[in-house]
């Protein structure tokens, strides 16, 4: 049985997503990062050092912002696995950047609970304010806009995450400009943080 009418695989969807990797500067972990990696690797049996690939890639991002081909080679040699195995991980997980990113990567949750409370408009406002499309960095190199799937804080929708770590809750679409200005002026301190930090700041006012 054939079920499809004429539908074409469009560009950008079913083409191979493998990109030519950015070679980047020659990469090696700083002694501190190398030490942190060894501390993490000690959590796993010595013959399963490969478990530390994800932590190693986070350290790469800490050190130089995104993952380059030379960083992948370095991680492979430090972990003791093949480059392809590291590349496999880098290309699979959403939180590894393969291109240079701005100082603040703004990651807007777009999944249902956030969308029901206006996440689409938050993203639209951000695009307008920054003059970029999702996945792009603004001309000043300060902000990169990304969309994420459910971040696990749907009661505080719409939720925005910054730089894979910092949270900003209940982002109303009208306040997008204020958030961007806050980040420009005060840095991460301008963000609300997650549940617990919000309550610490404001007292336990409801869930």
């Amino acid at each position, binding site marked *: 049985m054939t079920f499809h009418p004429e539908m074409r695989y469009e560009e950008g*969807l079913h083409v191979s997503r493998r990109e030519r990797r950015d070679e980047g500067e020659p990469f090696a972990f700083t002694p501190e990062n190398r030490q942190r990696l060894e501390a993490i690797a000690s959590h796993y049996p010595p013959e399963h050092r490969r478990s530390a690939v994800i932590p190693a890639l986070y350290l790469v991002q800490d050190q130089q912002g995104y993952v380059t081909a030379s960083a992948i080679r370095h991680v492979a040699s430090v972990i003791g696995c093949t480059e392809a195995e590291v590349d496999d991980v880098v290309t699979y997980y959403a939180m590894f950047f393969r291109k240079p990113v701005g100082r603040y990567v703004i990651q807007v949750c777009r999944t249902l609970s956030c969308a029901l409370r206006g996440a689409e408009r938050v993203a639209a406002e951000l695009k307008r304010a920054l003059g970029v499309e999702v996945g792009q960095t603004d001309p000043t190199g300060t902000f990169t806009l990304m969309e994420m799937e459910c971040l696990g804080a*749907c009661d505080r929708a719409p939720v925005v995450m910054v730089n894979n770590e910092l949270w900003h809750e209940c982002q109303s679409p009208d306040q997008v400009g204020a958030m961007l200005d806050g980040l420009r002026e005060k840095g991460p301190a301008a963000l609300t943080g997650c549940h617990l930090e919000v309550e610490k700041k404001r007292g336990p006012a409801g869930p």
Partner: protein
Amino acid sequence: MDPVLTSHIREPNGHTLEAYLRRGGYSGLRKALSLPPGEVIEMVKASGLRGRGGAGFPTGMKWQFVPKDSPKPKYLCCNADESEPGTFKDHVLMERNPHLLLEGCAIGCHAIGAKVAYIYIRGEFYHVQRVLEAAIEEARAAGFLGRDILGSGFDCEIYVHRGAGAYEAGEESALLESLEGKRAQPRIRPPFPAVVGLYGCPTAINNVETLCNVPLILTHGPEWFASLGPEKNGGPKLYCISGHVEKPGVYEASMHVTLRELIYGYAGGIRGGRALKAVITGGSSTPVILPGQIDAQASFDGLLKAGSMLGSAAIIVMDDTTCMVWLAENLLHFYRHESCGKCTPCREGTDWLLKILHRIEAGDGSMRDIDLLLSVSRNIGGKTLCPFGDAAIAPVVSTIQHFRHEYEAHVREGRCTCPAEWREMGNRGPGARA
């Protein structure tokens, strides 16, 4: 029912070891270590505790499947991936009551004979990871973790492993792959993880909320635990309520509670006093149900009877302004993005579904497209390597089943037919809180 899992979560500094000990913390571990492992498993079995990660599988039975005589090391993995859209209960537990989880992990390790537990936490929970790691340090310093715990001769270490943004890493065998440093793609079963799991060794995988219930069973006894809920649905349960309600949040109740009580009682009703249109009861992968069914008991068995599932107890509420085609499109965007790509029906099928939905939502669809959606869904359902495929089609099939007229209206009128203002409303609705 008075909350037991979340009773102290709003106490300032309630997450510290000191506060936890004041509440009688770690007495469950003390009790467990005084018993042989088999008896701990028997207690968990007798309590009827069912897994809170989605499937509701009895925890005691899962632990029993871990072979006792295997010469290999054994592992306990705590599933803290919490990526099912609409779910945020484990988040609250780990952030506010981390020692409860650590105690549960240590008891689990003792029960199955493991010396190491890994908590696989999703990459987005960086701040939660720091809370957990601080709690592990506290517990180790106080002798609740590490070598020779409480003088019993039992050793146990807990490590937190941070993922990097992949929904599929929540599926148990994909979680193991990810923990081994690979792509989060499921394994073919059998063998099951209880026998061949992490690093090829016997492994038990449990959800955060499941493990948090274990210390309670040890301290208060299995009968107490079972008596909290309906038969076979015992214990306290956390419900995550989000969407168009006045007070979204995590609420603890016994599984006697109905969806109506949860939505109109705990969560304060629909925002702005609007009418309820549809409810998702257990995360995005469970079918949508109608307002007529909300008197169903929000238990594993109660929701099964109502034609849905308790899943991860993520209740997403939609008011009468919500477009059901848009809803399906939104969720299929999620599924297409998160499909791990290992098997064809899911990888290709979710892409086709999204494309067709996009076309209908944009007003370019035809009547044939509606049946096409069902046909593609039939070619995914039951034909995939892991339950992700069945999950992905649930929003499509259930919205067509209940709201076919909305799909048809989109096609007929060439546009989305929901009230234009509702998307504009954004977070300014009456339920919004800063």
